[in-house]
């Protein structure tokens, strides 16, 4: 057994969780999509100017109306957050926790990369005498914290509320923050998660970096040529294990920095390895105990090559691994939480999702990569999230019974 870096990291119960993405709304549609290996991606019908790529779009956001008292928060990102709150009984679970702990004893820790910037883009397209149009001329939908503040308001939680924005690792970091705050006694429970919605800055921004595929992304395929951007939301309710002993658990987390490049991963995956080792160490795990790894697997040449070699040198043959971005697209700041929930589904359903989009895997990961979805006992699972700025996070989850 590995020596713990932070011996006092205490497991938390994930007493409720939900996911919404291009694959559908709620957990059941995602389990179904993973079983049948259906992709939620389709040809880009979002950008206002032609851009040949595939996107993961959540249907119906255009028609969602926030209740009257939440109108100040109305934007695509918060509509997606609102839609996600209504799935899988998540909101009711939070209400229950709020009644147990008190609203001020619960934090809202949200992650997003571009957040509500779609509103700002919209405003700039229809300026009124050089000013933002009057119908959106207020700050609450032009700041990244729009997400965290809106979720706190919608859930009537009055404890600490923050929005983390570390690019594509944003909503993985919030799990670690919640664990630390609960361990310090600052709060009793936390709603953590991420929401990211389609917007033009990320579509054109990733395109300017030549990282967007012209087809549906193909993580770890030898012919992969970039990402497919998706929108999505993942949410989880974290509390002490005693409060929900049967629930799956957050066992450990690891965080690191590449200190290498703003947009390219460290060529040897140095930061990513540090994050994975820390997650294993403080979860009291060794690599052989892991059944499934939900890989970051974006579909870019660089990311997947580095991550494939890393998994190859760190994990024994028994470990199955896959990227789920072929189903949802890369949901950027929401990817950490979306994929955390998909990882929890793997634990709860005893399934290893097939790595959709890959026909011929990179040699380095061929022995680990699950090409097809398979039933398999999954007791311990990891999920990787790596972001721009060299920001890496790994989360370790386990079945409720694994550490009882």
């Amino acid at each position, binding site marked *: 057994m590995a020596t713990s870096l932070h011996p006092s990291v205490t497991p938390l119960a994930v007493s409720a969780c939900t996911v919404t993405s291009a694959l559908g709304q709620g957990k059941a549609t995602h389990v179904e999509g993973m079983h049948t290996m259906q992709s939620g991606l389709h040809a880009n019908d979002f950008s206002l100017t032609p851009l040949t790529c595939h996107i993961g779009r959540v249907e119906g956001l255009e028609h969602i109306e926030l209740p009257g008292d939440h109108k100040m928060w109305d934007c695509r990102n918060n509509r997606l957050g609102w839609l996600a709150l209504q799935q899988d009984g998540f909101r009711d679970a939070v209400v229950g926790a709020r009644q147990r702990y008190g609203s001020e*004893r619960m934090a809202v820790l949200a992650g997003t990369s571009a957040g509500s910037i779609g509103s700002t883009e919209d405003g700039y397209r229809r300026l009124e005498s050089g000013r933002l149009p009057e119908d959106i001329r207020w700050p609450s939908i032009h*700041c990244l914290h729009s997400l965290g503040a809106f979720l706190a308001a919608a859930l009537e939680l009055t404890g600490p509320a923050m929005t983390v924005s570390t690019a594509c690792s944003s909503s993985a970091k919030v799990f670690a923050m919640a664990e630390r705050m609960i361990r310090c006694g*600052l709060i009793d429970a936390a709603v953590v998660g991420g929401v990211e919605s389609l917007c033009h800055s990320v579509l054109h921004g990733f395109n300017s970096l030549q990282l967007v595929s012209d087809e549906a992304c193909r993580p770890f395929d030898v012919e992969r040529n970039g990402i497919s951007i998706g929108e999505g939301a993942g949410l989880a309710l974290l509390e002490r294990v005693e409060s929900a002993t049967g629930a799956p658990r957050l066992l450990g987390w690891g965080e*690191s920095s590449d*200190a290498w490049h703003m947009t390219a991963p460290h060529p040897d995956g140095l930061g990513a390895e540090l994050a994975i080792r820390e997650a294993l160490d403080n979860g009291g795990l060794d690599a052989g105990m892991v059944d499934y790894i939900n890989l970051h697997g974006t579909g870019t040449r660089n990311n997947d090559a580095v991550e494939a070699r890393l998994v190859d040198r760190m994990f024994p043959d028994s470990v199955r691994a896959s990227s789920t971005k072929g189903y949802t697209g890369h949901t950027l700041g929401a990817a950490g939480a979306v994929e955390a929930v998909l990882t929890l589904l793997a634990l709860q359903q005893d399934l290893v999702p097939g790595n959709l989009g890959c026909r011929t895997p990179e040699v380095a990961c061929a022995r680990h990569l699950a090409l097809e979805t398979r039933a398999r006992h999954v007791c311990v699972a990891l999920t990787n999230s790596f972001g721009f700025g060299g920001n890496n996070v790994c989360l370790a989850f386990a079945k409720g019974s694994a550490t009882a």
Partner: protein
Amino acid sequence: MSMSPQHKSLSVWLEGVGAWTPELPDWPTLRDWLRGAPAPGVEAVDKPRPTVLSASARRRAPRSVLAAVDVASQAVAMTHRDASRVPSLFATAQGDSGIVDSICATLATHPGELSPTRFHNSVHNAAAGYWTMATGCHAASSALTAFGYTFAAGLLEAASTAHAQSTPLLMVSYDVPGCGPLTEILATKTPFACALLVAAERSERAVARADIQLVRHVERDALAGRAGQLAANNVSARGIGLLQSLALRRSGVLYLQVAPQIDLKICMEHHP
């Protein structure tokens, strides 16, 4: 005052400080100014030039990042700690709204011409990226935001992390004014950046101790005088009360709002 008996107090030791405004370019200058000294009267500098960054990184980095990295360097230098081993947390309400302005203006007219450098500089963790690269730091780095409560939220997360991981931690809070149509709706009108190196355990580096507790929010009078001026014009400067306490070496209690209904109650105690 605390909301319930479970509300523990977290104590952190403050070891290093950094600060920058165009007129008050470092912590000793801001400290003396907060004590009543005249401003140095040198010409205002639009942006700092932190030497920890390579020349090419200095050219590419936006003003917000230069300010954040500069104050981070000051705080670490004061402690003589090895920057490559200290986790960092960058709190900023808006990141760089000048870049957001430029990106949105380009998208509105020529979306295909978006600059890749502007795009990667626009991520909220740009400062964390430049800082960790400049210092070769592989420890965790983060970036968060919380509207007008950003400084306090950063301090709370810094205290929580320092405690939970028994580590010193560098916390930076910075905001710069934007340009274009966003300007009128954003609270930051003048640039300000500050940094604190906090530790969970006392060492010979400690200059003060801050006991931090969550309490129910109470409306209080805004800060007066010079500190008040800064706080009124920059979201990250809303934590200036803590810097003022350090400058004046004044023990006592101060409050920073951290969410709509809660404040941080901070008991400051100074050490010789």
